[in-house]
């Protein structure tokens, strides 16, 4: 149903594509779900970040060509969602410490400060070894588990400093 995206794909500046064929195929698979290729931008950005760890300017240009929409439109969307990293790749583990009210009043602020000191980084940054990215989360929607920490796709409940150390040490 979507033939709008059949634009000839221009060779990229570096001469080497960052979006491989498999990733392109998975992005294209979203096209039939929506009447407009621009609606695929968010699912595509998720796939790109999942695969490459970040969304580089080169990836934005290639996605623009793939979807047949201007790169600045993608950049406009991309820059709105703090979720996507535009500077450098995420660490192996993205650690979200909830700092919204329910978690904050049960020790979430303390956990966040603890990890900042432990890793000597600010929220949003990645440890030098590329293992952890620390994030201050706005309400993870896990308030009954306060304080909650989301590590990649796993939520951890009623976390303390000791429990957090244990969880982090056990990560492969």
């Amino acid at each position, binding site marked *: 149903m979507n033939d709008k995206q059949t634009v000839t794909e221009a060779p990229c500046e570096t001469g080497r594509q960052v979006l491989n064929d498999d990733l392109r195929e998975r992005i294209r698979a979203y096209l039939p779900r929506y009447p407009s290729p621009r609606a695929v931008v*968010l699912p595509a950005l998720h796939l790109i970040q999942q695969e490459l760890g970040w969304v580089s300017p080169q990836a934005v240009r290639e996605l623009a060509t793939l979807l047949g929409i201007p790169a600045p439109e993608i950049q406009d969307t991309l*820059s709105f969602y703090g979720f996507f990293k535009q500077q450098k790749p995420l660490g192996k583990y993205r650690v979200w410490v909830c700092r*919204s009210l329910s978690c904050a009043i049960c020790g979430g602020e*303390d956990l966040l400060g603890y990890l900042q000191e432990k890793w000597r980084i600010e929220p949003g940054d990645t440890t030098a070894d590329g293992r952890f990215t620390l994030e201050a989360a706005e*309400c993870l*929607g896990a308030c009954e588990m306060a304080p909650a920490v989301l590590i990649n796709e796993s939520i951890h409940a009623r976390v303390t400093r000791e429990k957090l150390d244990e969880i982090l040490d056990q990560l492969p």
Partner: protein
Amino acid sequence: MENFEPVLLANIHRPDSHTLAAYEATGGYQTLRRALRELSPAQVVDEVRRSGLRGRGGAGFPTGLKWSFLPADHPGPIYLCVNADESEPGTFCNRVLMELDPHQVLEGTILSAYATRATTAYIYLRYEYPLALRRLQAAIDEAYAAGYLGKNILGSNFSLDVYIHRGAGAYICGEETGLIESIEGKRAWPRSKPPFPAVEGLFRKPTVVNNVETLACVKHIVERGADWFRTIGVPPAPDDPRDPGSFGPKLFCISGHVNRPGCYEAPLGISCRELIEKFGGGVWKGRRAKAVVPGGLSTGLLSADELDVPMDFVGPVQKGCLGLGTGGVIVMDETYPIIEFLHNSCRFFAHESCGQCTPCREGTSWALQIVRRIKAGRGRLVDLDLLLEIADNIGIIPGTTICGLADGAAWPMKTAIRKFREELEDYIKRTNPTGYKIRRPVPALDNGTCSQKGSSVSFQA
């Protein structure tokens, strides 16, 4: 309350409650089967309208009325967006439904799509719910395989496709037109209304946006009838012709300083105190409550002597709160400083303001700067008036912004300052004994951090 049987959470404790087999074993999808055979879309709309169901996502708009705004005889397509971007601090009831009874949500979605003649439904799911994503996707796959989704559902003329669209960590996507923009692949800037989504929504087509819990209610209304639904909850106030009442069961999320935080179901109109005592197990550590957020952070604060308020669409408003909101109850005990609440709330909204409307963007970020300075021990008494001035002038209610995010930012400020002014003034005097009376402008903190005196002020663990 005495005879209340859970409706929405009735099956979540059964083994494998998230699977199709478990759902069908409790009569799941029988309502859909019957509706497709016996009811016209208009009859479903009418039943929902008569039930008095109001949206569970925060605004409380009557669902049937919202549906009736769709143009009749539109050639289509019409879209249904399921708002699963649950991001209001203190709220997690949609997550519980999607993780533990996703087919109930789907059956409500399919019935609502049938009623509104939508042929595609997008479930806008916040990114932070990975388990809900897996459960919901598995449920969708099962429903397609069983013929509850796809072409000619159960042999009828009705067809529906359902897709999950994952968000990317932006609170504003819970606003219905922000959600629509986000699905379209744009920054989630809410649209000016009118036109309302029912007339011109997703991809410029007629669109209905409903919350997950609202759709789950629809399933039960179609199953058991509007009259049954109206036996639960609170009828309209006889002296207020504009009050449509607060009918039906509601999920309440209780968190913070309580013994048993969790998601509980009760009829609308239960008192806040009963929720905290009976369901939440009371305030933790044998302490008393100082303040309670009744319905998610945006709704503001109840003080300890206001806890008998009925939790319906009217009660919290009568206590100066923004509304019932999402039913996310957050309890703060007597040792918790209100300045910390104010700081937490201002930081949240400054971070989540989408930046489109100047009063909200600037108002929330200046409020945060002022509160940070107060917290760091450089506050002035006049700062409280300054904060009130900001709070009274940002939002839909004063008419200065496109969406209600700024109202949500304003109410915690207004209620905290108006209900706890003495404590805040004491804090300012205590932490800034030489400067609290100053009226002239004072410098903001460097980078918003506590550089001078403030370095000794630390977060309350």
